[in-house]
């Protein structure tokens, strides 16, 4: 009887959220899944295409480039976004002079729009007149074609993305660090524990739920990168920085292949789902609730 009450209560608590999510997110996702088995140019009628789209994308060189780029981007940017954010959050978790100002400065890149961010970094990266190359020249080094060479384009994009998103994760970690009781630190100090020990055995386990959140969401978001690669490098040079979502967008709205774009989106979905499930399974070992 009690279980029934609990179940009912649970469903009631979830209901409002589920209605909104169900109608405005899950239903359109289902519709898009249906589209992936069709052939549609958005204007005319839809034609049934079976698994044609899926068969095609396996051989599509641009899809493979986009997949490779997206994986490169994700695994290149996630460590920075997590570790740097955590480090800064720990430093800013005290009431030192100017802590509010520092936190705001870190959050500024998050607040500004992707267009503005891309513009800023385009200037910094400009091969001829950019600030970074200007400094290199002063130091006597040769300028680097940051966003126009196949070698450096993606690392340059990664730097911009880390710069932009570090503040975001920092805020989450700050909130999590708030919940670590002061007494624990005091007790540790009394026991003579060093900084690293305290961090490793007290702080880290206590914020592990937030850490799990950040790493999981980072994977989910970075695989869907769009703004920074589109605006900063337009997917170039060549196909060095084109991302999966960028290619999806182009297929849907420039190449008039909505069904194909949906199929690519579903492959992306399955990949991310796979990673996430792995992370969830693995999380039992290190996340403490």
């Amino acid at each position: 009887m009690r279980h029934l009450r609990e179940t009912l209560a649970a469903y009631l608590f979830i209901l409002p959220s589920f209605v909104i999510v169900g109608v405005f997110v899950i239903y359109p996702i289902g519709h898009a899944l249906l589209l992936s088995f069709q052939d549609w140019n958005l204007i005319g009628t839809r034609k049934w295409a079976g698994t044609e789209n899926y068969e095609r994308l396996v051989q599509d060189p641009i899809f493979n480039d986009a997949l490779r780029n997206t994986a490169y981007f994700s695994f290149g940017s996630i460590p920075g976004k997590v570790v740097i954010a955590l480090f800064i959050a720990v430093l800013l978790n005290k009431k030192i002079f100017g802590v509010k100002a520092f936190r705001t400065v870190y959050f500024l890149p998050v607040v500004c729009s992707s267009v503005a961010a891309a513009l800023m970094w385009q200037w910094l990266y400009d091969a001829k007149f950019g600030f970074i190359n200007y400094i290199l020249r002063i130091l006597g080094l040769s300028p680097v074609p940051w966003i126009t060479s196949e070698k450096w384009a993606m690392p340059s994009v990664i730097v911009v993305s880390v710069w932009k998103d570090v503040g975001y994760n920092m805020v989450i970690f700050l909130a999590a660090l708030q919940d670590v009781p002061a007494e624990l630190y005091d007790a540790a100090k009394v026991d003579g524990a060093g900084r690293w020990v305290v961090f490793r055995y007290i702080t880290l386990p206590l914020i592990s739920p937030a850490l799990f959140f950040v790493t999981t969401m980072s994977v989910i978001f970075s695989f869907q990168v769009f703004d920074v690669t589109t605006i900063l490098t337009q997917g170039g040079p060549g196909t060095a920085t084109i991302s999966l979502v960028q290619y999806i967008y182009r297929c849907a709205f420039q190449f008039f292949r909505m069904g194909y774009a949906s199929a690519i989106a579903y492959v992306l979905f399955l990949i991310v789902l796979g990673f996430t499930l792995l992370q969830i399974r693995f999380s039992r070992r290190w996340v403490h609730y």
Partner: protein
Amino acid sequence: MRLSRYVLLLVGVLLLGAFASASAQEKVTIKYAFWGNPLAIGVEEDILNEFHKEHPRIQVEPVAVAYADYHTKLLTMIAGGLAPDVMRIDSYYFADFMDAGALMPIDEYIQRDGIDLGLYYEVGLPDSSYNGKMYGLPWGTAPLYFAYNIKMFEDAGVKPPEVGWTWEDFVEAARSIARGTGIERRYAFGAPFTVIVYILPFIWSAGGDLFDVTRTKFTLDEPQTLARLNELGKFMQEGVFANPFELPSEEAVTRLFSQNLIAMRQAAAIEVLSMQQIEGLNFDVIHWPTGKDVPQTTVVKSNTVGISISTKYPEEAWTFLKFLRAPGGPGDYLYAKAKRIPPTSKIPELWDLYVDPTKPPKSIKEVTELISSKYGRTLPLRKGWLEIEGILIPALQKVWSGQASAEEAIATVKPEIESIMKARR
């Protein structure tokens, strides 16, 4: 008793009158979609105000967004069954829209209302037609001019381009102008080469083209075309042309052009506008260098404003379209007065309105006339243009950087391009 009967009668008459007048003044609302920045949108607002004065029964609601994602919005609206009644479509997308059946043919209306298509610059008309029928009226028909920096030519002691100049003249001038090293390097020509439009004038002057006349065969691998592409690559590697990888956009070109570091460039009407705002920049325009027996080497781009095939009010939509785009009509005058895009019809008064004699480029009127009569050429647009471009450009970029010869690069992408050309959509 009698009073209440009179009151009822009065009320009845009033209601009847109101109903009658309401249906007589029944307003029709149509949507008009276009792109623009605030200044361009201001012009459209003026046109709408004028239209509403003349046609109070038709209410036109503007739907305007920035160019960058305009077609995404348009496609989504059409996909959702809410297509705008009158819409502007960029020529790159036009063939695909037509193939999918988005617009209705307007030949009947054109004939019925006596629109003289001959008043348009002929070069712009093909971009608004499909399978022999007209599907809209041209908008923004304008050449992609060849602009040159007068000061840089003077400094180098080189004669500026004149009407009738050829590819050989261009090469000679280019080699004389390009000089210097490092940041101070002065380039003869600069372009991002990120869209097909940039290479076309050059391969046209070599006697080649992207497709054949029917636009069903890919012809970029003809020997004279490949040779010309290799030449372009060499210019970039030698530094006669600016490194396209360092020019992410037309704007970067404008910057360097204004700083007297690039001597020659492509310039659409919008670039002309931007360059006019730069203090101290003296430039002029001309047609692109011609080839042997090939005078038509200047791209003329023309977009279309058409009527949706699913509109509920074709008559009203046509009334508005006529107002907006008929040659010499009110729309034409207002566009010319705004001085943003050159007139699309051969009507002298429009040019007088558009041209500002105090600003460069001085030759814009004559050059435009020359281009439309002799030197202009329409783009070989077709279904799948953007997709083909997406594959072709990275291949060409290998030629620009010297990683591959034109032969190799084109051979790699030819099969894929041909399969796109054959694909059902």
